[in-house]
C-alpha cells in the first residue's frame, strides 16, 4: 500500500483521511460497490427502496441499486 506523495498540480484530490472525501463519491462506492454476501441478515441494502429525500441525495446510487446497469446508462447518455 503506498501513500505515494504525488505531484498533481492541476488536479484536485480528495483522498485520505476519510473526512475529506466527498459524500457523493463515497456513497457511489459504498452503496453500489462492495461485496453483497447475504445470508441470515436483517436487511440488505439491495432490498431497500431508497427514497430520494432531497435534491442532494442518491439518484445515481438508487439507479445502481435497482439493477439498472450504470454502464448502459452511460452509453445511452453519450
Amino acid at each position, binding site marked *: 500500500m503506498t501513500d505515494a506523495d504525488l505531484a498533481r498540480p492541476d488536479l484536485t484530490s480528495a483522498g485520505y483521511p476519510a473526512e475529506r472525501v466527498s459524500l457523493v463519491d463515497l456513497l457511489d462506492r459504498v452503496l453500489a460497490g462492495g461485496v453483497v454476501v447475504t*445470508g441470515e441478515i436483517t436487511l440488505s441494502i*439491495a432490498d431497500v*427502496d431508497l*427514497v430520494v429525500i432531497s435534491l442532494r441525495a442518491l*439518484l445515481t446510487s438508487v439507479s445502481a441499486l*435497482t439493477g439498472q446497469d450504470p454502464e448502459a446508462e452511460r452509453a445511452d447518455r453519450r
Partner: protein
Amino acid sequence: MSGGELTRPPGPAPKRVRYRLDADDDPRSAERGLAALVLTIVELLRQLMERQALRRVEDGTVTDEQAERLGYTLMRLEERMNELLDEFGLEPEDLNIDLGPLGPLLDS
C-alpha cells in the same frame, strides 16, 4: 436459514422523487421556488421555439420578412424572460429541474 445466494433487487424498484419547493417557511422562498418551476417551463418553450425558428430560417422556408419578425419576437421574449428573472430574484442557473436518470430538463 442462510441462503448463501446473492439477493438481486426484485426488478426495477419504483423510485420516488420528492421535489422540495423550499426548505424554510419564508413565503417568498416558496413563491420563488414556484416561479423557478414555472419559468423553467417557459424557458424550455422559449428555447424550443428559438431552435425551431432558426431551423426554418436556415431551411429557407420563411421569407426574409418573416424571419425578421420571428427574430424580433424572440429577442423580445428573451428580454421579457430576463425581466421576469429579475422580478423574482432568480438567476438563469436557478432555472432547471433534475429529472433524475433523465438528467436536467434544460440543456446546458
